[in-house]
């Protein structure tokens, strides 16, 4: 539970549960149209301060709400997310609505199609409120890299919400949506969930289609949900997961009933605690909060045991080579030719490319493109990119070995709680090191959940990361529920 905040403004508000809302709407006691209108009122009131939404999709939302209300009035059975207001991170495409990826290079761009995850939410009845602010091209850990201004943490507006899905996390924490979609490449769902005190899900790589996601690093990107509680996050995952013919990396494995899985007791599960995630650099208050969470798991009947992950320290360098290399390839398409920003007055094609990119990409994006290009360039490819991909296999194998001994691995999600705006922007390397607990799971393709696990003395949320082997999201949800139930 987040304790009393001493700042003058407090934007924290917990959304109602999916279960409660579903009943309200099905019974007709609440009209989906009124619910959506209420959310737009709240957004109008607090978005100027928090800067969560970049654009609103009111027409589409209200049409959907009207459709839901008509079905409810007839007494027809309703799809699982009927009438539920959901926000979408601005790296996911909604047809005809702006998709900026937090960048000037896509200012004004209107996608010609919906992302599959967006389509699935809508088919399940969700009311899509609008597009949410994020770090530019999902590159960042604080939402300070957005070309449209930072998002403020609703818990303390002088602090960052985390990143890159800072807006998506903040939206749920401040009840500007009941749930949101974000993306996680190196921790971009888990870390902001931790900083804002909400639940964030990292699905197994390939579990959710990436079709319609503006790509950052194709072997790492995952689409996943934020919600105010574990069961709702599990429900959302169930809606967006599944094979998609339009994503060649999407998994064909059947989608279980994640919400039902999350209802199962955690008793008897073996929980691994890696010493490498509790060493130097971990804020003592975060450590204390996580230790309470681990104690709660023991009280719930889990067996807690140490696991050894000695390669952990290599994960950040591997990540920053692999992710930047892939990003340099994925962002090559932003060249002013077919969409997005084109620099005026270039007299050759080559000048147009470089002027457009230089004028419209932010500093962090340029830094990562340069690093990635360098790592892939002739003479350096073997030493950097190839080496990183080899170490990646070793990291993944280390995790898989650990999962033969335990069912889930728990750790802090971030080494510190939400830091102040501007605190880390001068030192890119310091910012990268904040990802230390999240990047290994990204590299290994495994799944996980961040669940609120207490707070610091100052009231800043702390999140516990629960990791499970590929396609074992159910196990992660069970453990997360047990932590949630402890109401730390």
């Amino acid at each position, binding site marked *: 539970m987040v304790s009393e905040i001493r700042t003058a403004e407090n934007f924290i508000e917990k959304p109602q549960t999916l279960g409660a809302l579903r009943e309200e709407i099905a019974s007709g006691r609440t009209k989906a149209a009124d619910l959506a209108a209420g959310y737009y009122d709240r957004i109008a009131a607090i978005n100027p301060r928090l800067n969560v939404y970049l654009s609103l999709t009111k027409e589409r939302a209200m049409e959907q709400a009207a459709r839901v209300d008509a079905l409810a009035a007839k007494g027809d059975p309703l799809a699982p997310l009927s009438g539920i207001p959901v926000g979408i991170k601005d790296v996911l495409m909604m047809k005809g609505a702006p998709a900026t990826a937090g960048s000037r290079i896509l200012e004004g761009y209107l996608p010609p199609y919906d992302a599959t995850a967006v389509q699935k939410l809508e088919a399940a009845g969700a009311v899509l409120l609008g597009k949410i602010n994020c770090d530019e091209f999902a590159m960042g850990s604080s939402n300070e890299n957005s070309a449209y201004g930072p998002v403020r943490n609703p818990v303390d507006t002088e602090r960052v919400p985390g990143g890159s899905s800072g807006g998506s996390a903040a939206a749920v924490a401040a009840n500007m949506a009941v749930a949101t979609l974000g993306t996680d490449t190196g921790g971009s769902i888990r870390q902001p969930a931790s900083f804002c005190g909400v639940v964030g899900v990292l699905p197994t790589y390939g579990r959710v289609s990436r079709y319609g996601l503006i790509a950052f690093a194709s072997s790492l990107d995952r689409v996943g949900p934020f919600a105010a509680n574990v069961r709702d996050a599990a429900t959302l995952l169930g809606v967006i997961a599944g094979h998609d013919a339009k994503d060649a*990396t999407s998994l064909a494995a059947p989608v279980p009933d994640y919400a039902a899985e999350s209802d199962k007791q955690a008793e008897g599960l073996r929980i691994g605690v890696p010493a490498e995630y509790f060493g130097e650099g971990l804020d003592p208050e975060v450590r204390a909060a996580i230790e309470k969470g681990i104690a709660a798991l023991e009280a719930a009947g889990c067996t807690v045991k140490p696991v050894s992950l000695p390669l952990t320290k290599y994960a950040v360098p591997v990540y920053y080579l692999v992710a930047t290399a892939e990003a340099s390839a994925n962002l090559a398409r932003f060249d002013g030719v077919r969409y997005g920003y084109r620099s005026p007055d270039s007299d050759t094609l080559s*000048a147009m490319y470089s002027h457009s990119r230089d004028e419209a990409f932010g*500093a962090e994006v340029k830094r990562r493109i340069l690093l990635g290009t*360098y790592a892939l360039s002739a003479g350096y490819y073997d030493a950097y990119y190839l080496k990183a991909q080899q170490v990646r296999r070793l990291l993944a194998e280390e995790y898989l070995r650990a999962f033969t001994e335990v069912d889930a691995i728990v750790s802090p999600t971030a080494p510190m709680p939400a830091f102040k705006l501007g605190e880390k922007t001068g030192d*890119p390397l310091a910012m990268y090191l904040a990802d230390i607990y999240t990047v290994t799971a990204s590299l290994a393709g495994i799944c996980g959940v961040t669940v609120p696990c207490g707070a610091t003395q100052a009231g800043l949320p702390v999140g516990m990361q629960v990791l499970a082997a590929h396609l074992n999201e159910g196990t992660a949800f069970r453990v997360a529920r047990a932590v949630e139930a402890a109401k730390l």
Partner: protein
Amino acid sequence: MTAKVTVQEVERVAELAHLKLTPEETGLMLDNLNAILDYVAELNELDTTGVTPLAQMCELGDATGSSALRADQTQPSLDRAVVMSQAPETDGAFFKVPKVIER
């Protein structure tokens, strides 16, 4: 790997990446790159002889044949008019760009 990137290398890499950096940006990037590359040099501590690079995540996650190919049949693509509506400059059918080379 000796991580001492030179200004020339930053400029060459910027060229490869189609980025036009100001002298100020170049200086900053030089410092950032060197700091990051110093850090990633840690990877040399590990012996990776004979280790196959991990490039396709699917090999870890799924044994249920998601790599099956679809039938080779033409399917509709995006609506041209909608796509061209997003073009910075177009004649309706093609994207118009400045000439490729300076004569």
